[in-house]
């Protein structure tokens, strides 16, 4: 078996170990596996491809340059990577004032740029997205709304309270209740 085949067969955590040793080929594999979901998340949040590309680039460079900080016992590589992308996107949303020009028609935008289902991996990701989205949409509307505004919109609880004209305590309560219901609902969805 060639060395290239060997590295392709490694689990994420093993690839990450090679990345921590400064192996660019392992980092490229990490990007190949998680670059798509990372870009998709950034794009879902900021709503334009150039900003999503900047966020993804900054996030992956930060992963490469801070690779020593990864700790396998803190969760999966995918969760770690997406967490970094999410924080970068929130920073961009809160500092770059892109709220106004995005998300007005998030679904329409996604339709325009949806990836073609060319690989089994992409088809599986799309199916997984449908399942998680269905669980999210099953929540009471007011809970779905505060969760989406916070997570994908990058709005703070006080901004959401202003927007929805409700007390901050209610917003926080709905976030917590919604997450709890989502967690229970997802228990039947592959984690």
């Amino acid at each position, binding site marked *: 078996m060639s060395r290239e085949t060997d590295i392709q067969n490694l689990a994420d955590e093993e690839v990450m170990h090679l990345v921590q040793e*400064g192996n*660019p080929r392992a*980092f*490229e594999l990490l*990007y*190949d596996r998680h*670059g*798509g*979901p990372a*870009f*998709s*998340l950034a794009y879902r949040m900021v709503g*334009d491809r*150039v*900003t999503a*590309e*900047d966020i*993804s*680039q900054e996030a992956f*460079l930060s992963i*490469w340059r801070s690779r020593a900080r990864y700790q396998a016992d803190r*969760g999966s590589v995918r*969760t770690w990577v*997406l967490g970094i992308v999410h*924080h970068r996107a*929130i920073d961009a949303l809160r*500092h770059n*004032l892109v709220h106004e020009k995005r998300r007005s028609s998030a679904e329409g935008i*996604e339709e325009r*740029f*949806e*990836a073609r289902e060319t690989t089994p991996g992409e088809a599986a*990701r*799309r199916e*997984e*997205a449908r399942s*998680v*989205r269905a*669980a999210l949409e099953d929540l009471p509307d007011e809970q779905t709304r505060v*969760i989406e505004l*916070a*997570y994908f919109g990058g709005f*703070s*609880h006080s901004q*959401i309270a202003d927007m929805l004209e409700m007390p901050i*305590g209610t*917003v*926080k*309560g709905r*976030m*917590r*209740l*919604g*997450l*709890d219901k*989502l*967690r229970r609902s*997802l228990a039947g*969805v592959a*984690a």
Partner: protein
Amino acid sequence: MSVERHHAQEENVGAYLLSALTEIETRAFEKHLEECPVCQDELDRLRPAVDALPRSVDPVSPPASLKTSLMATVNADAREARGEARSEARRHGMARRLRERISRLSGGLTDMRPGVAWMAASIVLLAGMVGGATGLYAISELTSGDKGARTVTASVDKTRVPQASGSFAVAGNSAQGGVLRVHGLPTLENDSVYQVWLRRDGEAISQSLFSVGEDGDGAAAVADDLKSADAVMVTRERAGGAKAPSEKPVLNVRL
């Protein structure tokens, strides 16, 4: 920990997981977490729901240029690290040889008075360091692991960016582009970015966008082939970048 403080923080668990707290609230909540196993358990219980949220997003293909640009920077970083590792090994080897030379010398100095012996050893050490430093520079140039790789210092418009400096590391194979590193550039307003251009045949070709940290440091990749290009330039543009430079470059690297 008081019950009141716990109740005050307990309702923040969901907002914290969703990054909906302010920075001050986040710090206060994290401090509370350190001493509250109840909130820590609640956080662990709800976390899978938040971890699932990015999986609700339909896949969107990133542009191929993202990987190209990213890997150009990563490969340049790795080459630089390998070069530094070799230099470090070389330095250790040099120090070891110097210690051996001094040790051998000290054997021949035993008949000298202590002050004279120390002075003689110092002269040997100094000569070794000067010779070693020259050799080190040459080795670093020759064994950087990337034959033909070089670094070019940028010229800076001191009237507009007085504290700035920069350099451009050209890959050994110029078809692989290079990496621009800057220091002391001012941070820009939120609606502006620095844009990197490659000038070829009088035409400016956009390469990448970057911003700098509070310390003014930043880096950006030039992914295009450098063949027949004569300069790498940086301008300040509106967020999202421009199709052509809107101002005279604040930083310029002549290739």
